[in-house]
Each structure stands twice: as C-alpha cells, then as structure tokens.
C-alpha cells in the first residue's frame, strides 16, 4: 500500500514534468535548438499566477490561463527579438544566447519580486481524497490530471489540426514547407509561444502546491533536459511517457534508497539509456 502511494505521488509529479518538457521538446525537435531558459519560463509562469491571484483575484482557472497567455506572448517576443537571429548560427551561439536570457529573466524576476520565497494563498483547491487507502492531495491530483490532459491536447493539436500540421511540416522539412506556402518564421514564432505557454501553465500548476523564489527555474531546466532526451527530441508523446517515468523513478528511488540518490538514479539510467538507445525512447531513429 505504501508503495502504491509512492507510485501515485511519482506519477502526479511526473505529469507536470511531462507538460513543461513537452514545450521544450517542441522547439528542440523543430529547430534543433537547446533552450537553457526553459526553466525560467516555468518560474515566470509561477509569478504570473501570483500576480493574477493578488491583483485580479482570480481562481486556478484564471491564473492558469493568465500564465499561459503571458508566457505565450513572451515566447513569441523572445523568438522574434532574439532566437530567429541565432537559430542559423553555431550551436555555441545558441547556448550563449539562451544562457544569457536565463540570467536576464531570472534576475529581472529577482529585481521585481525580490529574493523572498512566496507561495500562492490557499486556493479553492485543497484537501485530500482517499481512494482505497491511497491518499491523493487534491491540488496535486488536479495539477497532474490537467498536465496530462494538456500534454495530450498539445499532441492532438500538432497531429490533427492544420496549424499543427504546418508546424510539423516546418520541423520535418523547412524548405519543402516553404514550397507549400508556409512561412517558417511565423511557425517557429508560434512554436516558441506554445513552448513557453506550456511551461507557463506548468508553472501555474506547480505554484498551487509549491513555494518558490526566482532561482527555482534552475531545477526544472535540468529535469526537462533529461525528460526530453529520454523521450526523444521533438516527440510530445515521448515527453509524456518520459516525464511520467522520471517522476516515478525519482519517487521510487527516493523511497528505496533515500532522496539524495533519486537524481543519481535518474542520471545514471539516463546515461545508460543514451548508450543503448541514442535516439531516445520514442525518438525518430
């Protein structure tokens, strides 16, 4: 029973990993671009939620949308003002630009909101439900379920709508997509918007249960890298499964070996898997 409880906790957390990693995998797969500032998008999503709650008095739905919208806009702005110019440059320039961006975003938040830890005031989501002896905190449960639904939604959007089809076309063959009349720049801007927006909602969902400060993004960024690499660059379903698996592994190894070993286990498995299957769990071979 205790073990089942651990598994449930791991999966609920893994669902959130899946959501913000799916944003990262989107631009990674589409543009072959590492975004070191992705964790910062999650962090900003958390602060936007706080602002919405404090100044507009919104509930979880309101701040979720608020964070998604604000971060979508930020993602597009970042693409148009910075990323499009470094996209064609060497990989090192990409690392440079997004690392600088991460510092810029983190410390702008620091400047505005100070270094102090904040958490959302108690929302309408609280309490715990008991399902056959397994305790599920409602905030985490709602956050996890929404995260899974949104990740699946993102996947459906990519595979079943015209705009998603155009996005994938650009990621598959930029030149051929241009021959169809698709403007790659517009699609890539959209991808950045979606990527940041997904991170923003993930931030809002985390904010329900987790206190934070401006440096919180660092942790999320590294986790997202592992999830994306495990799931295969560019694969949203891959990110979903990898996210759940990473959450599960972390929870189980924390329970069996102790919490300091949970990241060791994740990284070790990750490195081992890279050797055995370099294209990731669900990546294109």
């Amino acid at each position: 029973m205790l073990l089942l409880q651990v598994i449930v906790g791991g999966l609920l957390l893994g669902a959130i990993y899946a959501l913000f990693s799916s944003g990262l995998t989107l631009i990674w797969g589409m543009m072959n671009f590492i975004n070191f500032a992705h964790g910062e998008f999650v962090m900003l999503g958390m602060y936007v939620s706080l602002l919405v709650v404090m100044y507009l008095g919104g509930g979880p739905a309101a701040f979720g949308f608020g964070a998604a919208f604000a971060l979508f806009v930020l993602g597009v702005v970042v693409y148009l003002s910075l990323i499009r110019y470094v996209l064609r440059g060497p990989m090192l320039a990409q690392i440079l630009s997004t690392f600088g961006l991460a510092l810029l975003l983190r410390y702008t938040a620091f400047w505005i909101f100070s270094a102090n830890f904040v958490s959302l005031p108690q929302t309408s989501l609280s309490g715990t439900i008991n399902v056959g002896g397994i305790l599920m905190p409602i905030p985490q449960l709602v956050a996890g379920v929404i995260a899974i639904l949104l990740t699946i939604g993102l996947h459906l959007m990519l595979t079943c709508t015209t705009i998603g089809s155009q996005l994938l076309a650009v990621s598959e063959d930029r030149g051929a997509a241009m021959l169809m009349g698709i403007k790659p720049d517009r699609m890539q801007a959209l991808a950045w918007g979606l990527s940041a927006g997904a991170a923003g909602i993930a931030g809002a969902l985390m904010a329900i249960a987790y206190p934070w400060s401006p440096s919180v993004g660092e942790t999320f960024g590294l986790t997202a890298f592992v999830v994306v690499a495990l799931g295969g660059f560019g694969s949203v379903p891959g990110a979903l499964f990898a996210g759940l698996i990473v959450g599960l592994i972390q929870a189980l190894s924390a329970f069996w070996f102790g919490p300091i070993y949970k990241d060791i286990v994740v990284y070790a498995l990750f490195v081992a898997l890279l050797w055995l299957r370099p294209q990731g769990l669900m990546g294109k071979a």
Partner: protein
Amino acid sequence: MNKIPALSPTVLLAVALLIYPLIFSGAFYLDVGVTFLLAAISASAWNIVGGYAGQVSVGHAMFFGLGAYAPLLCYKLYGWTPMAGIPFGIAASVALAILIGIPTFRLTGHYFSMATIAVAELIRIYFGTWDLVGAAIGLQGPATARGWWDLTFRSELPYYYIFLTVLAVLLSFTYLMERHRFGYYLRAIKVGERAARSLGVPVQQTKIRALVLSAMFTSVAGSLYSVKTGFIDPESGFGILVSVQMVIIAALGGAGRLYGPLIGALILIPLQTATNTWFGGGGTGLTFIVYGGIIVLIARYEPGGIYDLWEQISPRRWRRKHAS
C-alpha cells in the same frame, strides 16, 4: 607577410600579461588577474575538444572538480603538499575521459552535450554524499603555509605567474597541435564526421585523444583553483556553472581559435567583476541583468564570437581573405 602579423599580437599579449602585475599591483586587481588567467586556462582546455573537435561538452566540470579535489584530499588524508595531488587529479581525469569517451562519442550533437551534463551532475551529487571527500561540506587546504611547497601564499603574485606559465604552456601546446596532423584531424571531424572518416581520419580515436588532452588541462585548472582558494566543495568543483562558464568564455571569444578563450576571458571576467563591483552591493540582481544582457547582445549580433568581429574589422585580414 603572414608571419609578422601573426606574431606581433602574440608578443604584445605576452608582454601585456607579463607586466600587468606591475601596473595593477593592488591585491584585488591581482586577484582579478588570477581569476582571469584561471578562466582562460579552463576555457582553453575545453577548447581542445569543444572548439577544435566541435564536440560541445557541457560537463567539463567533472575534470575540473577531480583536479580540484585531488590536492586537498592528499593534504587532508596524508598531510602532503597539495602539489602532490595534481598528478593524481590528472590521472583520475584521464581515466574518466577514456571511460566516458568511448561510449559517449557514439552520440552526436545535443546528445553528447546532454550525456556530459548528466555525468557531471552524477559526480557532483555523489561527491556531496561521500564522507571521504568531506561530503557537502567540502575540503580545506592548509590554513597557513608550512613552507613554500604548500603553495599557500600571502600574496597573489606567485599565483599570477604560476597560472600565467600554465596558460603559456597550454597555448603553446594548442598552437603546435593546430599545426600537427592531429589538428587537421580535429578540424576534419568538426566539419563533418562522415567526410572525415572517408578521408581516412580515425574519428573515434581522435575524439578520445582530444578529450583526454582536454581533460588533463582542465584537471590542472581545477588543481590550481583549489590550491589558490584553499577550499573545495561539490558545487564549486562540479557545479554546472563551472562547465557553462568554460563554454561561454570560449564561445564568446571564438571557439576553435587559439586565442578565442583568452579573448573571451578578457571580456567576461572584467565584465563579471565590474558588474559585481558596481551593482552587487545593492542586492537588486542588477549584476546579472547587465551581465546576462550583454551575453545576449553578443550572441545576437556576433554569433561567431568576438574573434570573428575582430577579423571582420581588421583591414589587413580582410584584404588577405578577399585576395584569393
């Protein structure tokens, strides 16, 4: 025509670095100079595999950290001079380079970068739990020197010239490497592995050699750091920022160029120092807003690094490039 312009900046640079302590004799400026040299050494070491061979490692802190722990561990366990630990650091780093080089070099592009990050993080977390190396608290060097051999000096001046010597050795080595067949192999691999292989370049072997060389010098940089600082803990040895700083400095100056990392360090270290001096005490985070902003601007407008910019605006090179 070719020889003189290539030589004179080197001479100027060497003279400038040699006389810097005479002009800026204050202990603080000396310390900034030492920090700059250390950054230049680490980034130049990274440059061998990251720049010349084009294998972007974001986990070089694993070698830096091993090099940094070895001297203080020798001091802690046996009371030896920290200097005695330097070869152990190199040996451990070489072993690690071979160990991880063989499997990870099958990976390309971002996968290689990700694998190096993961290995470095793994080691960092592990060292944080390992009592022999002081776990999270870390290791300390001799509080006061027992003799010159402890390399624990009151003044920064000896460190400056020791570090400068190491940098000179490393750059001379890189210069020779550039002109040796090995250097051509590396460049061929950077351009395209498949093409390199078809030209008969032993790709796998060359990459591992490059990593081993790079690891050796990175390890020495780590040893210099811990001997000078007299302290090491998992974060300052294996932290991801240690790796990222090497990448950023090299990229900023010009990766795969002899003086690229040096130029990068020449920009970044004074920039870090200046922003922290001017804005750090205010505690508003302005330090990093300015610092991050400048990095973003350089990446946006000069993606090939400052070295490229210099080549563009240098009329002599311009003429030579377009004469052919």
